């Protein structure tokens, strides 16, 4: 198996699906320009031409409806937004039109469209270039929502999304783009709706989304040295959300922490703990914990941003507290800082 980056995995998924199916096309603001959406659309214009890799006017809502109209008459559009924040302008089409179209035909119409949107962070992204808001989209029946964490998931889930006859929102964290991993060369799909256990452990279940899996894995390394074993569950798809992996894990650990890459209030973490309370109440040995962004707009300056975002240290502290253990001195730990790599501007 060869190792490729998350970014290249997304690119490969689109290229292979465009090769396999001539109805697949990709579009959005800046999609064919020389920056190539951080490289994820590299080579598509050259290989498939301007008919299948197209730039658009700055009109997120309308161009979302455009994708819907193309999808219901036989094309398979992939609409890309370099920030989730821009996708918010498309909420009308997404929530009023895209998510309901099939229902309005009583199941007859297919809506095979994919919406990719990137979550920004750091180096001054600030409060209008850093949102994830995946729970917004997951709140709506008729939309599927995936958040790939690993490069393998990026390729497999995006491929599945392109092949799906329903609208799928794919939320991608900018900092994951450099992650490298073994990724099969041949096309493959990871079923939408299946989570995965990223690490086995017996003491505490951590359900993490997107980038927070990276933080959870780092926290697990530290905690392991102190005799505490985390089990990390990455749902990967939050709608439809299959909670069975979480429930299985809780049967073993009895302790639940949700580390969500979003605000806590009314967020996906609330959904996870509610399902645990509904279906695994007897297994819970301690009150559940939720970790996420501080409930403020995202600040721009690093000093405040460090307070805003949770990280591995937050998870370590939360787990120790939950287990009634003395805090672990993490001052000597090297917390991997992506700012060393990410120098902006986007």
């Amino acid at each position: 198996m060869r190792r490729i980056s998350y970014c290249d995995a997304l690119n490969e998924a689109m290229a292979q699906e465009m090769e396999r199916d001539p109805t697949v096309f990709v579009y959005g603001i800046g999609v064919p320009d020389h920056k190539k959406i951080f490289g994820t659309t590299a080579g598509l214009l050259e290989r498939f031409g301007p008919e299948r890799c197209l730039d658009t006017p700055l009109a997120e809502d309308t161009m979302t409806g455009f994708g819907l109209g193309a999808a219901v008459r036989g094309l398979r559009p992939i609409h890309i937004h370099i920030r989730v924040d821009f996708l918010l302008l498309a909420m009308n089409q997404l929530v009023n039109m895209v998510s309901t179209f099939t229902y309005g035909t009583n199941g007859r119409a297919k809506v095979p469209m994919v919406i990719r949107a990137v979550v920004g962070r750091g180096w001054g992204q600030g409060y209008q270039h850093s949102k994830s808001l995946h729970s917004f989209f997951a709140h709506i029946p008729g939309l599927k929502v995936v958040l790939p964490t690993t490069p393998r998931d990026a390729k497999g889930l995006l491929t599945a999304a392109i092949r799906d006859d329903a609208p799928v929102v794919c939320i991608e964290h900018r900092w994951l783009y450099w992650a490298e991993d073994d990724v099969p060369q041949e096309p493959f799909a990871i079923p939408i709706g299946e989570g995965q256990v990223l690490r086995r452990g017996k003491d505490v279940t951590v359900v993490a989304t997107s980038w927070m899996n990276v933080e959870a894995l780092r926290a697990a390394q530290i905690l392991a040295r102190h005799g505490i074993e985390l089990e990390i569950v990455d749902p990967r798809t939050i709608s439809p959300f299959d909670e069975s992996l979480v429930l299985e894990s809780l049967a073993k650990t009895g302790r639940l922490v949700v580390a969500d890459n979003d605000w806590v209030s009314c967020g996906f973490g609330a959904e996870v703990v509610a399902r645990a309370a509904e279906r695994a109440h007897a297994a819970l040995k301690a009150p559940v914990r939720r970790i996420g962004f501080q409930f403020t707009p995202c600040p721009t300056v690093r000093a405040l941003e460090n307070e805003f975002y949770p990280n591995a240290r937050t998870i370590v502290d939360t787990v120790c507290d939950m287990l009634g253990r003395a805090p672990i001195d993490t001052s000597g730990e090297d917390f991997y800082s992506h700012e060393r790599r990410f120098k902006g501007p986007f």
Partner: protein
Amino acid sequence: MRDQVAELARTDLALARRIYELLFLVRRAEDYIIKHYHEDEMKTPMHMSMGQEAIPVGVCAALGEKADIYSSYRSHAPFLAKTSDVEGFFAELYGRAEGVGGGKGGSMHLANIDRGHMCSTAIVASGIPVAVGTAFANMRLGTGRMTATFFGDGAVDEGNFWESLNAACVMRIPLLFVCEDNGLAVHTGKRQRHGYRSIAEVVRGFDCIVAEDSSNDAQRIHDIAAGAIARCRAERRPAFLLFECYRYLEHVGINPDFDAGYRDKRDYEAYLAKDCIALQRRRLLAGGATDAEIKALEGAIDQRVRAAVERAKQAALPEAGQLFHGIFHETD
């Protein structure tokens, strides 16, 4: 030569008759809605097309079967003019399982994608972008299907309209933007909403075909639409068609509302003089059809609409489990 003229007259009369049938179908269907609405079995907000039928009928007659259209909640005329599916229509208004949307849509959400009425939307202007995408797909896949989107002068206030017009122009997509300009958004006139003198004047600044007409004559509208369709295809550009019309009834519901004070009944009376159904009936008579022939045609349509209502009344409601059917594509 004489044969050719006779042939032309025959085809013209055939077209005029087809247009009249569609006009009469829409009007009669709404007559039956008015007749039965008080029974409170059709529990769905009706935005009546009455008075405005000439536009969807004329345009749909020009589009033919191989076309896709989108409409607003004022959907009755576009839906029936495009699909003639009066049975699926009434079953849907009655919320029956055999309705076009299985009872999920009602009057504001009529869809029969097999016959090219893709959807109607209760969010002003929101079907317009979707039509642009369908027109793009029809162009890209070479389906030979033309696409049209119907909306009111209120929708022109929305960003979705301008963004869609811009996108269709810049992407060179053949598509008819059809504005049914009744001058009102609910009860608010254009003057309170439009910071420009004329919609058409502004749209002329875009790279598209523009036509305007205020005749309320379905056949004339048909001819304008047919010309625009040919040009759209030849020039690979969209067309914007602005048709003036008059809404006979209240914004939503089945009653006149001239006592409400926001419009003048004399405008209505002036429009009645050019009522599109009466006008087309006169044309048929002038073209050589006999009154008896027309009455026979009207009687047959009336029978069909009445039967559709009766059938819908008897039809079964959706079963409870149907709530979950069709959130995503299903093969039945």
